[in-house]
């Protein structure tokens, strides 16, 4: 197993990590020669917790890539996202010409038994050098303990949700982040934490949020600007390319204004929904998908397709009393 990388700019990785670092403490990094995936899942209950899958293009991010492993040159690591992010920020401030990333086995003689109990047997070493005011070279080396995921169980858990059926798909404008600020105040009331998302293609497209607390208030927040709400073709498969294509090229037949089944609604935890606010605020392109079981925010960090962030939130079934 070998991981050797060198980069000059960590901007894309740093921004991506900073967007998701609030959500969970540990992330899984999956290195392949073409793609780096940053995956946030909860090991215990994959289905109910929100998941984030970030896909970064290796070749645009790193100038030197050496990845070797026995399993299709794929390396899976679990790492503390805050430590990694802090190191990348240090590198950013140092005004250095390049950052090297290596996967290193922990020195078994040195820190024996220190980290073995939690399985963090290896470390990801990040090192760079810069010149100080007296033109002396300073070498910085950071070692972040990581856990290498090998067993088939670990990788079986890591399966990106498949979108077999998508009800509605729409692109959200950059101003949409204002709705997150409006919803924020309702997070205080802990006992009723569900928000119902309603969307339809009828009457020119609609997207709204409904929140209710018994005996206190009922809130409806709806988007006033034009939204191109579309219904994708039933046979389309939902990888990032087809979603992009669908949004950019409207092949929609137009809704049946009389058909009430056009109206879709799904309830999610307000907390889960609000966690995406940073992602929605930062990403250039945000596409929102409603499926019968979940809502998905499919985001592109920049105008290019180098960084893709996909946020899955599982729907909660509302008890009909």
């Amino acid at each position, binding site marked *: 197993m070998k991981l050797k990388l060198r980069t000059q700019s960590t901007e894309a990785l740093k921004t991506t990590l900073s967007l998701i670092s609030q959500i969970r403490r540990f992330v899984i990094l999956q290195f392949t020669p073409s793609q780096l995936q940053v995956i946030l899942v909860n090991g215990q209950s994959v289905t109910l917790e929100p998941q984030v899958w970030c896909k970064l293009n290796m070749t645009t991010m790193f100038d030197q890539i050496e990845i070797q492993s026995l399993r299709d040159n794929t390396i899976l690591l679990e790492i503390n996202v805050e430590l990694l992010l802090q190191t990348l920020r240090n590198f950013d401030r140092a005004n250095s010409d390049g950052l090297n990333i290596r996967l290193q086995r922990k020195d078994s003689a040195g820190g024996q038994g220190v980290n073995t109990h939690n399985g963090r047997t290896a470390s990801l070493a990040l090192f760079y050098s810069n010149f100080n005011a007296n033109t002396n070279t300073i070498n910085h080396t950071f070692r972040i303990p990581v856990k290498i995921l090998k067993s088939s169980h670990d990788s079986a858990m890591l399966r990106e949700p498949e979108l077999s059926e998508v009800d509605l798909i729409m692109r959200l404008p950059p101003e949409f982040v204002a709705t997150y600020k409006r919803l924020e105040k309702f997070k205080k009331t802990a006992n009723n934490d569900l928000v119902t998302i309603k969307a339809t293609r009828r009457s020119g497209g609609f997207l709204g949020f409904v929140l209710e607390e018994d005996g206190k208030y009922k809130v409806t927040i*709806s988007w006033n600007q034009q939204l191109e709400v579309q219904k994708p073709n039933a046979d389309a498969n939902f990888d990032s390319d087809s979603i992009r294509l669908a949004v950019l090229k409207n092949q929609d037949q137009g809704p049946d204004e009389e058909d009430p089944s056009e109206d879709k609604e799904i309830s999610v935890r307000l907390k889960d929904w609000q966690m995406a606010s940073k992602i929605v605020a930062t990403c250039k392109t945000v596409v929102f998908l409603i499926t019968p079981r979940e809502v998905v925010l499919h985001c592109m960090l920049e105008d290019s397709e180098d960084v893709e962030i996909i946020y899955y939130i599982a729907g909660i079934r509302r008890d009909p009393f």
Partner: protein
Amino acid sequence: MTGLFVDSQISSQGSEGDNDTHRGTYLASFSACTTQVAHLADVFSAITTLNPQALMIIKPSGIVVYSEYNHVSNVQLNVDPSLFSLFSFLVRDANDVVILSQEDLDVPTELRLGVDVSLISDAFASVAASSPSTKLKNPNNPANNHSDPVTCYFTYNGEGHPLVIEFEDNLMSEKIEFLTFYTDFAYPYDSLGDSEHEELVINHNQIQSELILKSDVFSNLLADLHQINTVELYIYLSNEARGLGKSKNSKIRFTDSQLNFISRGPIGHLKLIYPSERTILEKLVLYGKDPTKKYNMVPVNTSLISCYNFANFIKIFRAVKLSSKCKILKDLNGVLSIQLLCKNNILPTYAGTLITFHHLEVSSYLDEDFQKDQVETARNFNSIFDDENYEYATDANAKEIAIEEYQELDMEAEKTRLTYASFMNQPNSNSNGGKMADNNRGQEGLQKKRKREDKLDDNGKGIHTVGGAVEVPLFL
């Protein structure tokens, strides 16, 4: 706060409620519209400090929000209809015909509803916060810079309906239905003048003091008082006429207006002197009963002190910070009324929103004594500070004592500054004079005085020293 326990106040209103069912044929409804979201967010949040729940009264003359805390404080917010671009209060009869005349007594003139004002305040605050920040985010985007202001709509269709507040701009709409409920607040202005109900409202026939202050200085002062963990707040007012110059018979006299805030807290006492310049302390008038005519208050030159629980008093802080001018009234029943005028910078033509707080004095020393003699500030003040370390003294009579001392010493002694010692001696000045005369050397006299104090200390009545430091004496 739903009226599970109905007190006597409510039941008296309940009889009015019966009349309501009588006039059931009339239906009042209210709708209004404004773009002044930030101003409403400010004024609503300023009154939530007292109680999250409030009574809202909607009248053709404006919106009143009234709330109270523990029967010791209350607050009223008056929003003028001129803040709204549309303000309509309509009464319809059973045939849905709008009634315009108020001739029929059964026609309702107001709508009353219980609301959770902290929820409303949160809603306004989040809208006020989210609208300018979207502008800041894209400063290069001209479309965003000229985005529509948020318009806010109020709708209330009477009892049983929710209060609906909608916020709308070109991006989104937010419609909040606030459920309304009955409150058990007795609205004190209902029973005004009713002698049976002693309500927490200023009695304008018995005004004892009147102050007009500049709010920014007052809010800084309150922040300082809060920072030192004030427990009790004494407000000292004085407009006594003082002689100018050294001699006590000086013919030039002037009115010495003083407003002092004295804090009592864990670190001891602190006196903050409010600046007496006319531009900052715009008005200070004290009233006393005219001895010739009964129940008629006339302006007098005197001093007055009153005490308030600071934890409760500081609840006015947010409103003071918001306001531009502050009027403080106190009546003979110990009710302090703080009226705060909050201007709206965006709408210069708007007269301003009025927030009125009422606080009850912790204890009043004037109730019975007042009939016999006028305000006995010195005696009252001395009884407030029961530890006998602090006593009432005015600068004027302290100076006079000092002068007398020098005269008796034939000016031999060095000019001593006003010290704690001279302060201590003041109540016993009759014996003091003799003592000082006996000692023809000033230095010796001072030493003797110290000894006497030490003696007092032994008796447990003198200076208390804490960790070697002498408590700061309080001069008034």
